[in-house]
């Protein structure tokens, strides 16, 4: 009994430390965003509990482009998610239902090419995007973000679609359905859990991505992480509160998404990683 108690205490301690590690930095940002400037700055007032929305009003006054930039993030993240999920579901269906040397080669290629570091791709794309007038557009970021996820998503979708019995497709085909009809009416409705799982990965990545947004957008397509970093450069040292308000707004939606959909996230990563 005594050793049981000790084990429970140790476990509680470990969970407590894990909680501080995991949530500490996040809570620090969120809570600080509601504190008056003078309290943030003074260690002596660390435990002063005044609540204020000043930082938020100041943020919107000083950086009126903040909300439009959040809108850009939303457009880019939704676009990348839709594109990646669509193409990966199609590919996953083929990988799941067909066999062959060419298909193995295509999967091999997909995994291999995924290894290219993003910054390497930015070199040739920079002049090309300029020439095509795609620089500083949403569409460029959408295509880039999507491309970096389709490899893993296709494998993930293959594993999810593997769980749908092929006899269902065959039955539909016997009843006279075309391949497209079979896919749309039979496979797609049963693959939604996988599509949601895959979609969350792309959305979180696209919402938070910094490197490509930094290189490829200057005014029209500026996303939320970029404006937060701009604010960090312009106000750090003097106006932490405004910075925390911006960071909280950038962080909150996707944190809610991850927590709300954690089951899909776990299932998706397990499908994507364990099987290949």
């Amino acid at each position, binding site marked *: 009994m005594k050793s049981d108690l000790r084990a429970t205490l140790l*476990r509680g301690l*470990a*969970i407590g430390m*894990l*909680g501080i590690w*995991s*949530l500490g930095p*996040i809570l620090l*940002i969120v809570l600080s965003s509601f504190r008056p400037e003078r309290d943030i*700055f003074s*260690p002596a007032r660390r435990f002063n509990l005044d609540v204020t929305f000043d930082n938020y009003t100041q943020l919107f006054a000083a950086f009126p482009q903040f909300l439009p930039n959040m809108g850009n993030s939303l457009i880019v993240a939704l676009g990348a998610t839709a594109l990646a999920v*669509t*193409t990966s579901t*199609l*590919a996953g269906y*083929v*990988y799941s239902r067909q*066999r062959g040397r060419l*298909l193995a080669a*295509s999967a091999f*290629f*997909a995994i291999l*090419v995924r*290894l*290219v*570091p*993003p*910054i*390497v791709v930015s*070199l*040739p*794309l*920079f002049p*090309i995007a300029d020439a095509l007038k795609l620089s500083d557009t949403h569409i460029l970021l959408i*295509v880039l973000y*999507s*491309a*970096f996820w*389709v490899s893993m998503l*296709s494998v993930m979708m293959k594993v999810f679609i593997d769980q749908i019995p092929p006899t269902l497709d065959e039955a539909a085909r016997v009843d006279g359905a075309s391949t497209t009809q079979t896919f749309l009416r039979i496979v797609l409705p049963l693959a939604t859990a996988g599509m949601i799982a895959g979609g969350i990965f792309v959305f*979180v990545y696209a*919402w*938070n*991505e*910094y490197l490509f947004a930094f290189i490829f957008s200057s005014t029209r397509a500026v996303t*939320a*992480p970029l404006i*937060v970093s701009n604010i*960090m450069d312009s106000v750090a040292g003097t106006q932490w509160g405004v910075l925390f308000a911006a*960071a909280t707004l*950038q*962080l909150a939606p996707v*944190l809610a998404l*991850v*927590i709300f959909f*954690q089951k899909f*996230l776990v299932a998706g990563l397990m499908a994507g*990683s364990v*099987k*290949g």
Partner: protein
Amino acid sequence: MLLPMQLQLILVLALPSLYVLWLSFTESSYGATPEFVGWANYAAILSDPSFWRSLVNTLIVVNIVVYVEIILSIGVALLFQSVKRGRALLMAMILAPYAVSEVVAVLAWRFMLEPDIGILTGLFSALGYVPNWATNPIEALVLVSMIGVWLHLPFSFLLIYAALIAIPADLGEAARVDGARPWQRFRLVTLPLLMPAILIAIIFRYIFGFRIFSEVWLLTQGGPARTTEVMAVYLYKNAFRYNEFGMAAATGWLMVLGALLLASFYVYHVYRSGFRNEV
């Protein structure tokens, strides 16, 4: 049906990488016509002390990140498995940093280690050590590594946890009946069975750790005096600050080759275990 996905990969990843290979053999800058110069760019970066510094820095960061992260992940996965109640809450807690952008993560850690007001600075000072990542490159790199571990622990944790729950429970039970102590059960039963997943996680994290850019850029921009540059930052500065596309491209291809080398083991494993027979 495969075409749209393959098209994206070819247009966005494959063709540009091949073009970078060509660029790496040319003298070129933004807006100018590339001119073939053979191995000159490779010779130039290999004789540039900043390149070697960036390589060493990358190796420091990636090795701290990978091993700290993997050891923590194993611990957290074991802890998670041993918890019976409140699992959804605990999982949400572990996954939370996955939702945080590099920008916000850097902001949070920077704030905790800010010289006068940082909560961690205060803690360290009380222990008799005054940290200052802004002037000490090694401290800056350690801080970058910690931010990396913090951001990516959820990912490694999930990889290892997935393997952990796939281990049949009666194996551990049998070892216990045979009189094995908890540590022995972990070392002789659990760890060997986790090894394949751990190896995959290590390779995964090596490949993705190697391309680290944002954490360093947002924290120090490679400074002071280029002492905290990593390879991606070195590449970025060559390309977009010094307008040396050729040298940047050569750096890029060294990074691609490094990633391929690291991955060859993983790709071989995937090829053997899955796609040859399955797809």
